[in-house]
Structure formats: C-alpha cells, structure tokens
C-alpha cells in the first residue's frame, strides 16, 4: 500500500513522528480522542486553579476572533510554522535537530547586519540577499552538527544543544561588540535598522483592522509546499524517508547515509535560518536584545503536534499562535497567563498519547485478524 511500508519498522519512534499512517476510522478516532483528553485535562487544571473553565475558554475565543488578534495569531504562526518545518525535516530522517533555535538566531543577526550595513543596492535585491544570507548561515551552523554525526558519530542531539550555547555566545558577542549600535537613550542595543525599501510590507489580509499580516507569510506557505514536494515527489525525498524509517534497508538499496545526514541537516538548518525573516523584514527591522527567542523549541512541539506533515503543522502553528496571543487577555482577567503553557503541553501530550493508543489498537487488531485467518479453515479455496 505505501511505497515504504515493507521497510517500515513499527517502532514507537516511527509512530510518534507520524511516519506510519493510520487508516480507516482509526485515523479519525485518534484526533477525536486527543481533543477530548486535552479538553478534559485543561478543564480540570482550570477548575483546580480556581478559574471557571467554560468562561476562560470563552474569553479566549472571543478575544481570538477579533480581527487584530487574528493578525497577531497569523504572524506568530508564520514564525512557528517555519520553525516546525525545519524540525520536521530532520524528524523525517530520524535526525533530532534541537539546534533550530541557535541556527535561526545566528542567521537572524547575520541577515540583520547585512540589511543594516548600508549597502547601496535596490530594495528587492537587498531582500533576496538578506534572506539568502539567513538561509546560508543557518545551513552552515547546522552542517557542523551534520558533519560531526556523519564522520565522527557524534549524536546530533548533543552537538546541536552545544551549538545552541555556542551560538548564543557568538550572537551576544556580535551584537554587543561588532554589529550593535546603542539605541540613543535606551538600554537596548541592536543592529543598524534595515532601510525602508528593503523591508517587506505587510498584507491587509483580514478586514476590520489596520494590523497587517507579514508579507513573508507567502514564504512560509512556499516552504510548506516545497517540503511536501521534496519529500513526496523526489528521489531525494524518498531516500530521506527511507533512511529515517529503516537505515539498514536504505543502505541495502544504495543510499549514501552519510551524505543524506549532512544534506538533511543542511536543509533543516537552511529552513531554520529563515524563521526570523518575517519578523526581521516585516516588523523589527533590526536584531536587538528583544528579538524573539526560543521559537526553535516551540517548533519541536508543533512538529510533533502536526505529526511532521505540512498541513498538520499549519494547524498546529495557528493553534499555538492563538494560545500565545490569548495569554494577554487571560492576564487582564486575572487568570494566570502560564495556563496557556500548561494547555500547550497538555495538547501535545494528548496528541502523542492518542495516536500511540490508536496504533496499539491497530497492531493488536492486525494480529487478531492474522491469527483469525490462520486459524480459519481454507473455505473459499486458495483465492489469493
């Protein structure tokens, strides 16, 4: 049925990362169970902390459906979406790129520095240069971990975490000592602002508000489509998925695993480098002390939530963006905004648990079916 299924190891990891599809009614049951479970646990948490569950969710929904909030949600979701794609690229090949966070921050400061360097180029060319710089920086930083894994057997989990630390220090050094210009009278420090003509204007997607959606949301959409095409329509994507599912089988079929590891890391890092671009070119125009951080880690949760599928990730990213932007309104109603993080955690856990339960059910059902067929006398002759 599935082109890779003969080589698929039915391991917990493969199931967790959505590499084994569910079919039939189970495919519908898993998300329903996840939602029920997440809803119940969230309601319990809210009730225990003394907040009326229905009213709390009502506040969030009312606020979340206002036009301005929708823009805010979409803008956050754009960043989260790219982050989750970067993570998912690695996941599909069994590579745990925990370093997405470091990769995008380093990429963002290099891109911002180029943007503010005063190069006298046409705006559109600057935009392309800035985006390419970001992608290349992210790719190079991730390649270190890829090379270490391919040629020295260093776990990419360990090396990317370490590279995050190193990246943080490098960014801080570059910001304070090399690229940074103090903002007059402020305690902030940032790269020189990107000139007006090299900024990407927002799009007035949503009526009823002056707030605009990041123009680079189209970059995110393009990346999502590219992700789907690359993985499902190309030889490379097939090799990548095969390597992720069953390395021995991949080697047997002639895949150069070392090269795949490095390429996958480079691709993942390149996408990671783009995470900060909508924010940089659409809102901040400079990398400063308050440039958003931690998005790479959010991406891991969203990739799991979206089961490494570009459409699933899109829903996950929007859900996450909605929850994050609603924390302000909860705070205003004297509900602790940390409740949002608890909800996010519960949702990811619920999805993981529900899908695993569905898979377990599928496996035992298959076993029952097989044993039934084996036990049953051959009735209709050897029809197969």
């Amino acid at each position, binding site marked *: 049925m599935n082109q890779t299924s003969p080589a698929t190891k039915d391991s917990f990891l493969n199931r967790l990362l959505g590499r084994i599809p569910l079919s039939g009614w189970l495919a519908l049951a*898993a998300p329903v169970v996840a939602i029920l479970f997440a809803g119940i646990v969230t309601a319990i948490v809210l009730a225990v902390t003394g907040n009326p569950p*229905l009213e709390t969710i*009502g506040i969030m*929904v009312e606020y979340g459906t206002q036009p301005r909030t929708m823009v805010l949600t979409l803008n*956050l979701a754009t960043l989260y979406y790219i982050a989750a794609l970067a993570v998912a690229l690695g996941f599909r090949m069994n590579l745990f790129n925990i370093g997405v966070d470091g990769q995008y921050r380093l990429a963002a400061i290099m891109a911002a520095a180029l943007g503010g360097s005063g190069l006298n180029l046409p705006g559109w060319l600057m935009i392309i240069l800035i985006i390419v710089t970001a992608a290349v920086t992210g790719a190079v930083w991730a390649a270190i971990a890829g090379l270490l894994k391919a040629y020295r057997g260093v776990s990419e989990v360990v090396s990317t975490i370490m590279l995050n630390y190193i990246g*943080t220090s490098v960014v801080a050094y570059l910001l304070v000592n090399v690229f940074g210009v103090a903002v007059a009278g402020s305690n902030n420090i940032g790269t020189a602002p990107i000139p007006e003509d090299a900024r990407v204007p927002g799009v007035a997607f949503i009526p009823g508000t002056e707030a605009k959606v990041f123009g680079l949301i189209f970059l995110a959409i393009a990346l999502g489509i590219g992700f789907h095409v690359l993985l499902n329509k190309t030889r490379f994507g097939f090799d990548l998925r095969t390597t992720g599912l069953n390395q021995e089988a991949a080697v047997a079929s002639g895949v150069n695993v070392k090269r795949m590891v490095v390429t996958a890391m480079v691709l993942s890092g390149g996408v990671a480098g783009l995470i900060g671009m909508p924010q940089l070119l659409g809102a901040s125009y400079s990398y400063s002390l308050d440039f*958003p951080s931690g998005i790479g880690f959010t991406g891991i949760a969203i990739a799991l939530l979206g089961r490494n599928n570009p459409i699933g990730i899109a*829903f996950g990213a929007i859900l996450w963006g909605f929850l*994050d932007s609603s924390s302000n309104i909860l705070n205003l109603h004297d509900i602790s905004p940390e409740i949002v993080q608890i909800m996010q955690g519960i949702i990811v856990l619920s999805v993981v648990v529900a899908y695993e339960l569905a898979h377990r059910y599928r496996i035992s059902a298959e076993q029952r079916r097989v044993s039934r067929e084996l036990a049953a006398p051959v009735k209709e002759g050897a029809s197969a």
Partner: protein
Amino acid sequence: MLRNRVSKLAVTGVTGALLMAAAACGGGGTTATESPAPGGAASSAPAEPAKSGAKVGLAYDIGGRGDQSFNDAAAAGLDKAVSEFGLEPKELEAANGETEAQKEERLRLLASGGFNPIIAVGFAYSGPVGKVAKEFPDVKFAIVDDAVEGANISNLLFAEEQGSFLVGAAAALKSKSGNIGFVGGVDVPLIHKFQAGFEAGAKAVKADIKIQTKYLTQPPDFSGFGDPAKGKTAAEGMIDGGADVVYQAAGGSGAGVFEAAKASNTLAIGVDSDQALTADAAVKDVIITSMLKKVDVAVYDFLKSVDGGTVKAGPTIYDLKAGGVDYSVTGGKVDDIKSKLDEYKQQIIDGKITVPQK
C-alpha cells in the same frame, strides 16, 4: 498509494481543525463575558488624569511581580500609590522570548480597556510604548529605563553609574587585599553602566586596584538575573582569586553571591533595593551597603504627578542629585567611611566628577 497520502493529509488537517473547533465549542455558551469592551469602559477614565478609583495599568518585563528585584521595585511603588490615591491597578507580565507585537498588544489591551495611566517596566517596551502611545493620545504612558519619545510618554531614567560609583569607592575602601569583584547578571548595556560606575569609583580610591568581572549569562538568556547557583559559583571564583568585596548587579542571582561571601567570611554589596533589609537573614551581615535604584520612587512619583494633574512628558532622570540612586547605610558597616563616600557623592552632584556610563 495516492489515496492513502491524500487521506493522511486530510486527517492531519482535520486534527488541527477539530482542535480549533473544540476550543471554539467550549466557549459557545459564554461568549458574552464581561471582557472590557474596547473603548466602552474607557468612559470611566477618559482624557482626564487619574483621580481616585482611576484604573492604572502596569506591564512588567519577564519575571513580573515576585522577581525580588527590578519588577518588584516597580510593584512596591505601585502598591504605595494604590493605597494612597485609591487607584485600581491591573498588572500584566511578559512571556519569555515573546515578540514585540505581543508587548504592543498588552499595552493596547490596557489602553483600550480604559486604563490610564499605563506604566511599562523595562527597555523592552521601548518600541511598543512609542507605537501605542500614538494610538491613544489621551492616555498617559510611562516607561522605566528607556528614552522613547512621545507627547504622552514620561521616561523614568536612572543614573545607575553614579550610585555604582559610590559603592565602588566603598568596596575599594573596605578591601584589605586590594582585589574586588563585580558580578553582572546578563551581559547587556544596562548592566555595563553598573560595571562602569563601580570600576570608576574603585579606581578613584585606589588607582591600581584589581577588579574581577564576570557576567553570568549572555542575552537572550536572561536566566542570569534569577539563578543564585550561578551567582554563587561566580563569586566563589572571585573570592578564590583573592577578592574580598564583591558587588552584584544580578537581580535574583545576587542571593548566591551573598552566600559565597558568607561562607568565605568576605564582604558583599547589594543592588536595587536595600538588601541588608531584604536579603535572607543568614547572609544579611555580609552586606556592607547596597546601590539603591529607586524604581519604586520613580513609579510612585509618576502616579502622584498623574493624580495631581502635573504629569510631564519626556525624561525624568533619577540620579544622585534627585535621590533616585544612592547607597544604603543599614547595618552601620560603612559608617567609618561615610564621610568619604558623601564627599564623592557631593562631587558627583556638583559635577566635579563625571562618571562614565561604559
């Protein structure tokens, strides 16, 4: 095969949609909650400055109330004003690593909910305050530690380097080994001002003094302001290296610096509030003085001026002259050098000494 992939896509899509739908259903019955309708509630506090019962909004940076440091100082000023002028406060706090748009939205929610005045605590609100203040010209804004300009923005700025100069001088006068230390929370320009003042003060007393410097974390990792274990390790390293007085500008991490000083029988200097009063009882006796940064006074003064209708836009600089920064004498451990410190203080106030900011 194709069918399978399509169904997989569809299902994953449905997952997300249902999650969203579930959230939407939950609220179905109660969508008419009493959230502050934008503009509607503003009628209770229109363009007029805060009177009794006025709604005051306070937006904190990461940590919020209870960080035992910067945010708490602002909270103390708010509390005092609330009890004196009968204000109705609302406090919102930032999440870690959030975008500027989220800070902006926080201020906008307060402004559209009828909160006036609104105080933003920390330089991270610079851009957001600038933008939102333009959208709500009738609302008074104040921002701590930032000079963003606007017709309705009051900037509460501090001369941290001046106060740090005095405790630097105190450290040099108290040190027997001629070796002192500076522990900074996070390597950012704000803390560089503390370091610059401290070094200048110490060198004014003893030109060849040895000063060890250590920052606990690099931005955007702001855990250096809230990790006593890191503070302790850094201070122990300095003490092992011969330092006998350590100044900390590290927020919550400072508690670890005090512990290290206590364990090695050396001295320490506190920051922001009078830590000989606020620190853990077991370590109070190692704190010879503290560099006071009176964020509480600034916040209170601002709210008082709003209450009295005398609020002025633009920067108010809380320096030694204005009493916005100072050194503390609780515990009597600097009584013997007080006259010398006051001499420096007077020279700075008179402009005879200019303290560097970096």
